[in-house]
């Protein structure tokens, strides 16, 4: 197994069985990401991109296939040490922080779980690293703005020093100006700490900005792998990718016409 591979996914399948039958959320996903790389998954709703992320995070018991992190196979039941390697930042800043815990408690919890030393210093450092100061320590999530909550979520993900950070549409719920700040922060943190990112987004520009390589998903399968440069230059092969690009740039439909009054 290649030691440079941070994450390797082999034939990942997820089938949900319901009373009336079954539904395949993922139909055999193959993916390989090197250490320090930033990889994007794009697709529309229902494509399964978030399911891939959740399976890597160990949140999908129905997952079949192989997920290897650092050349080590990960099941759905994981040890604390295994959990430490992969952390996740969710889309909804309103739902991913416990409404009754202070910021300090939210950041202390992972430290306590993994028995790190000097918790108070680590918490302060984590907050500073995401651009928040100590005055935020004892506030509740409902007292913070969306961007501030997302920063806390990022601080929480990084405080136990994972190798891989999973980002599930981390800026979709944020205003454009806040999105810019968070994207800059994510890029900076990755550079400083040599993190590996797996980013899921429906926004092609965000993926192209943050990632070097990406995969396009549709109906639970990957239809194309490409680099962000190729995406930018329109050098795509699969017709679905082309369709996504067209819809994104809005060139297919919206033409300004004068209204006949």
């Amino acid at each position, binding site marked *: 197994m290649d030691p440079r591979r941070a994450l390797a996914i082999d034939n990942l399948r997820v089938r949900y069985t319901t009373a009336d039958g079954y539904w395949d959320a993922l139909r055999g996903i193959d993916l390989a990401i090197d250490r320090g790389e930033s990889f994007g998954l794009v697709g529309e709703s229902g494509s399964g991109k978030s399911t891939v992320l959740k399976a890597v995070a160990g949140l999908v018991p129905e997952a079949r296939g192989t997920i290897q992190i650092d050349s080590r196979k990960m099941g759905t039941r994981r040890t604390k040490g295994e959990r430490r390697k992969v952390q996740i930042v969710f889309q909804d800043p309103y739902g991913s922080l416990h409404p009754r815990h202070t910021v300090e408690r939210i950041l202390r919890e992972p430290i306590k779980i993994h028995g790190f030393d000097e918790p108070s210093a680590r918490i302060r450092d984590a907050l500073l690293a995401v651009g928040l100061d100590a005055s935020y320590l004892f506030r509740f999530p409902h007292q913070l703005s969306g961007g501030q909550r997302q920063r806390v979520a990022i601080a929480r993900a990084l405080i136990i020093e994972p190798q891989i950070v999973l980002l599930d549409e981390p800026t979709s719920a944020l205003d*454009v100006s806040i999105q810019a700040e968070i994207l800059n922060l994510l890029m900076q943190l990755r550079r400083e700490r040599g993190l590996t990112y797996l980013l899921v987004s429906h926004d092609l520009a965000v993926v192209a900005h943050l990632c070097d390589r990406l995969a396009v998903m549709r109906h639970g399968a990957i239809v194309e792998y490409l680099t962000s440069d190729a995406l930018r230059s329109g050098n795509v092969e699969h017709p679905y990718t082309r369709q996504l690009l067209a*819809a994104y740039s809005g060139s297919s439909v919206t033409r300004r*016409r004068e209204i006949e009054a």
Partner: protein
Amino acid sequence: MTGHRPLIDAQALTVTFATASGPVSAVRSVSFALGRERLGIVGESGSGKSTVCRALLGLLPPKTRVSADVLTFDGQNLLGLSRNSWRTIRGARIGLIMQDPKYSLNPIMSVGAQVAEVYRFHKGYGRAAAWTMTIDALAAVGIHEPERVAKLHPHQVSGGIGQRVMIASMLALDPDLLIADEATSALDATIAAQVLALIDDLVVRRGMGLLLVSHDLGLVGRFCDRVLVMRDGQIVEMLEARSLEHARHSYTKALLAARPRLDRRVDILPTVRRDAALPQ
């Protein structure tokens, strides 16, 4: 455009909410006019853009103070309107589509029944006639197999279909003005494009006015004729959509620059500085 009475004429519109911590002005002295054109209002959260829409429809909470030098719809004064008067304007003359059709549609009625209700109660059609008109309306908004879809409930249809149903039920009343408040924000790009094309087509064919509210500057720039940029309750810039790239106000320029772009590569995205004082 000239010679026609503007559909909306707003001058010095101010909306103040009564909150637990005192009065808060979400809209501060906003002035604009809207004719039979596509006008976009762009702003981030807290800019007041949705509040402007609510003020134009009388959908604000009871203790809210709305004041303006002028606030008219097609010449009719909208200030201090009675509830009954609002009911004749809302729906019949001004239509509204909001972000999530799941919240706008009645979850326990089929979508067809809800559209048919409009025909029966507002236009006086009988049950059978209303159903026929419903099927036609659903087909007109581009829904395939309208007879099958009409029997489905809101949670059984996708977001794109839901928005088309909203448009169908709203068009049944043939309003003069359509307000779309983040109508495509929750939809995938391809579906959003289709819904926008539909709105575009109807607006042009029927000569309706369109007020499109969105946080997406790019979308509004591509789709509308004119754009208003709002921040903290005020309009900071008003310009033709085709001149958007040459915007002059620093905030508009900052918003344009803050988006990651597909056509060029940037290392660090410029961010909007939070200024307490706003230039007049």
